[in-house]
Structures are given as structure tokens and as C-alpha cells.
């Protein structure tokens, strides 16, 4: 059993039965609990359960195996490719000819699949790409892979916004608005 607190480094935190959230935004890498109040939307709203995988983290020079959702600048990655699916994964990212474009393609794919989710939740997900921690952890499986990119989050948000506008634009709303302004 683990006995490190990610918040005050004294209490027991890394437990086998907990699901963690790793915000992998290199050079910043942050770990949190996935089903706390702030992050629960990832599981309940987005159904990110399918992205839970086992990752090896290093914290305070100690290694731990944790069950976690790993977000690579907001893009959830599983470790290995599942044949016949396009689910973003570390194996494909590592083998991609351009990591930035793999990330962008993955994020568009994700947003396309989340097009029925409320915009504020998408903003919350994209905001996780900015999350920083003053005491970073390491993720062993991603060590030395040169994964730093500089994603344009506003472009992704714009795409999501457009899909929402496309789905909600309707003549009745405009008609009501014209009447309201008379």
C-alpha cells in the first residue's frame, strides 16, 4: 500500500482502489484524484473510464504503479493500441511521424466524439492543459520520449464551438430575437 499525500505529502494517497488523473503537459506533469469534485466530469460526463490504464509514476524518488487517466495536453491516452479502434494511445503517439499532428488529430477526434457535451465541461478539459504543479512527478512510460508540443487550445475550442452553433442554430430563435428587439 502507498503512503504519500499528493497534497501535503504526509497522508496516505496513492491507493490501489483509487483512480488518478495525470495531467501530462510537459514540462509540467501533475497528478490528482480522478473522481474528486473537480475532475469527476471526466468520468461521469465524458465516460473516460475506458481510458483508465496502469501507469508507473515516480514521486519523491519512489516508484508507484497507479490506475490513472493520463491526459496528454488534454488528450486521454491509453498505453497500447486496441486493434480495430482509433482510440488515442501512447504506442501510436510514439510511432507517429509528427507528434503535434497526432495530438491535433486526436483532439479533434475526441471533441467530435464529445459533441453532445456542454461547452463549459469542454472548457474545463482544455483548461487542464494549463495545469501546473510546483513539485512535478515523472511518468516512467513517457520518460525521455521528447513529447513537448505547443498546442493551440483556442483553435480546438473554436472547432467545438462551431459544432455546437451548427447544432443549435435555428430560425425560430432568430425570429423570437427579432420580435424581442421590436
Amino acid at each position, binding site marked *: 500500500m502507498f503512503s504519500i499525500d499528493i497534497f501535503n505529502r504526509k497522508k496516505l494517497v496513492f491507493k490501489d482502489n483509487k483512480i488518478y488523473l495525470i495531467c501530462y503537459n510537459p514540462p509540467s506533469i501533475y497528478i490528482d484524484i480522478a473522481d474528486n469534485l473537480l475532475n469527476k466530469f471526466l468520468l461521469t460526463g465524458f465516460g473516460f473510464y475506458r481510458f483508465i490504464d496502469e501507469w508507473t509514476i515516480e514521486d519523491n524518488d519512489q516508484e508507484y504503479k497507479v490506475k490513472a487517466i493520463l491526459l496528454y495536453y488534454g488528450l486521454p491516452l491509453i498505453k497500447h493500441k486496441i486493434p480495430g479502434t482509433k482510440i488515442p494511445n501512447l504506442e501510436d503517439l510514439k510511432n507517429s*511521424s509528427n507528434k503535434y499532428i*497526432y495530438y491535433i488529430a*486526436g483532439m479533434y477526434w475526441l471533441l467530435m466524439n464529445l459533441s453532445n457535451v456542454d461547452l463549459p465541461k469542454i472548457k474545463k478539459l482544455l483548461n487542464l492543459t494549463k495545469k501546473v504543479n510546483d513539485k512535478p512527478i515523472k511518468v516512467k512510460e513517457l520518460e525521455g520520449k521528447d513529447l513537448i508540443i505547443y498546442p493551440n487550445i483556442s483553435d480546438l475550442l473554436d472547432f467545438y464551438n462551431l459544432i455546437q*452553433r451548427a447544432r443549435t442554430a435555428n430560425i425560430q430563435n432568430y*425570429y423570437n430575437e427579432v420580435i424581442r428587439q421590436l
Partner: protein
Amino acid sequence: MNDKRLLIVALTLYLLELSKIMNDLNQHHLKLKNYLNSKEIKDEATKELLEEVIIFIKTETDSLEKTYKASKTIYKGLIRNINSKKQNLSKNSH
């Protein structure tokens, strides 16, 4: 203002919004197509993701275009209708 005129104003705003969404979605479509066609992308995983998103955007814009065309037809019909009424009124007054 009568109902038809109100509808013309609403339709004008609606058509502008549809046109703006289509144009902006096309920009995303174009960007992703450029990535897909660039010689830099050699791995199948990236290509497959890009292809699926490109098809998705195309389906969305095609659907918007159909709505745009149908709304434009209604808009033109209303304008024609109002113009012919104006002409009739003008003839009757002479």
C-alpha cells in the same frame, strides 16, 4: 412590421450565421486536409484519425448547406411575394 417582414429579418440573420459557421468549419476542414496530404504524415494512425474527422466536418457542412439552400429559397420567395404586392398596390393606386 408584419409577420412576413419579421421572418425576412430573422432569415437574413439566420442565413448569415449559417454562412459564417460553414466558412469557419471549412477552415478547419482545409487545415486537417493539408495535414493529411502533407508528406510529413507517414503513419496510418494519424491518417485514420484525420480522415474520420474530415468526414465528420464534411457531413456537418453538407447538412448546413442543405439547410442554407432551403432557407434561402424561402427567403427569396418572401421577397418576391412582398415585391409583387408592392407592384400590385402601385398599379391599383394609378
